[in-house]
């Protein structure tokens, strides 16, 4: 559209950023709220988009930087959409997991191996969590094809599991909290961590051409996020207030939320792990230039 082209020619230090209600985006919001971006001479126009799967195609037109996940980045790149990672967002580590597979005593799924023949509710069938879960199932000797998959929106997951419409569910924060609130729910583990002991499952992307011509801006963006992450670590209350504002979550959920581990590190090794997982678990057979996906690193 015409109005997008106009913004393209605009000030390169004005960033059009899109992300969803994910806690992974908290540093961006804190940086906006606390004037950290201003300090780095960046202006930010923020749009909330819940379905981040469509964002790669809109980069360069509607947005400059968007939140995304490795599987989306890899698929998009393979189909010729020139995306690249500009910054890390969070890192899954052993003592702070963000992915969950949750079974239930009533459905009899208390171990990942028992999923064969059962119905698993997933957030998105092609998303990172599910790719990781499939890889995990394979590791455990379960054929992923034997698991019946249905897509269940996060907010409805707790009810569907409790009502026995699904036997297990694969989820992320904050939905995991309400799913686990049921007495019968059993946490089976973090599928991300089955791929590697430390792994990035969510990150910031832009178009490759934009990234290569705005390396300085990207460095400032990362610096701002790092500063915001520090601020979050030191100002829990303020940070949670910001979280509440942009997610709209109710107070109990905000209080109970476990904030993820933030990073701006671009980790080529993680992208490789994800590509392998997709090849192995999903039958992905595309040819992807991993270097291009992280080329902006510098």
């Amino acid at each position, binding site marked *: 559209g015409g109005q997008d082209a106009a913004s393209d020619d605009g000030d390169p230090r004005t960033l059009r950023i899109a992300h969803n209600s994910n806690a992974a985006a908290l540093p961006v919001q804190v940086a906006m709220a606390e004037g950290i971006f201003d300090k780095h001479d960046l202006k930010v126009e923020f749009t909330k988009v819940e379905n981040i799967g*469509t964002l790669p*195609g809109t980069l360069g*037109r509607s947005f400059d930087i968007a939140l995304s996940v490795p599987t989306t980045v890899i698929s998009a790149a393979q189909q010729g959409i020139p995306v690249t990672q500009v910054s890390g967002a969070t890192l899954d580590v052993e003592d702070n997991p963000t992915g969950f597979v949750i079974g239930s005593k009533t459905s009899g799924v208390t171990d990942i191996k028992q999923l064969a023949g059962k119905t698993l509710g997933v957030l998105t069938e092609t998303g990172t969590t599910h790719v990781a879960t499939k890889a995990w199932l394979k590791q455990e000797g379960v054929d992923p094809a034997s698991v019946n998959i249905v897509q269940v929106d996060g907010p409805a997951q707790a009810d569907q599991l409790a009502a026995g419409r699904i036997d297990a569910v694969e989820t992320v924060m904050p939905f995991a909290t309400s799913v686990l609130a049921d007495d019968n729910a059993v946490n089976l583990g973090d599928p991300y961590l089955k791929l590697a002991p430390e792994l990035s499952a969510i990150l910031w992307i832009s178009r490759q051409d934009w990234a290569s011509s705005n390396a300085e801006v990207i460095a400032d963006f990362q610096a701002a996020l790092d500063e915001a992450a520090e601020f979050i670590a030191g100002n829990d209350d303020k940070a949670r207030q910001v979280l509440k504002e942009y997610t709209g979550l109710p107070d109990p959920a905000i209080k109970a939320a476990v904030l993820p581990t933030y990073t701006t590190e671009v980790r080529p090794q993680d992208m490789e792990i994800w590509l392998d997982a997709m090849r192995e678990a999903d039958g992905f057979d595309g040819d992807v230039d991993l270097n291009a996906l992280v080329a902006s690193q510098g």
Partner: protein
Amino acid sequence: MNRPVARRINVLGAAVFVLALGLWELLVRTSILDFAYLPPPTVVAQGLGELVSSGELGEALGHTLFAALSGWALAALAGVAAGSVLGLVRPVWMYSMASLEALRALPIVAFVPVAVLLFGFSVQTEIMVAFYAALWPILLNTISGMRTEPRMLESGAVLRLSRAAVLWKIRLPGATAMIVVGLRLGLSVSLVLTLVAEMVGNPAGLGFLLVEKGQALQPGQMFAAVFVIGVTGIILNALVMGAARLAFRGQMASSGEVSS
């Protein structure tokens, strides 16, 4: 003066509606329905209060109405015009109807991402979708309404009405009842698909509010948005019918849409 206004208010319909809400509340209160995702009407009412006081509702509703009504109005113009041509000019019908039927069969929802690519995250995307969705019922009903009673057409011919006058005075008025049905159907599909476009495409309006509140684990507010959508449907329809009764008195009376 007061009586007709009072009679316009559909007490019976409102009673049935309230009764259904009461039943829902009762089912939740008695724990026959017990789901966090599906709150009882009282909680929804509370959510509605929150949405109204935060100002989110007004803005979202305004956005959605603007998109849906713009698309619908464009579709009404295009649908009635194209429908008249297709209904009257046989060769045009012959050489294009099948294409229209094929286009019409395309699932518009799947094109929302494409529309987002073409028009970006903008209200134009929504208007396009609303237009596309509303066009078909209006078009088909217009074409079908153009099958006028032959004796009336002969009356027009005998009284030497021009082609334009036959269209304007006999065909279109004769098709009005059908066209109004098309407009009503078009209005509801344009609303529904504007919402879909907001849910999967442009993050704005009631559709996005719905998704956002769902993701924010606020089922009360989410269903308040759903409720507002439903009530909007009722009101829009009542407005269209009211306008039709005013503008097309005779047609509405002869098709039984005006009592006494």
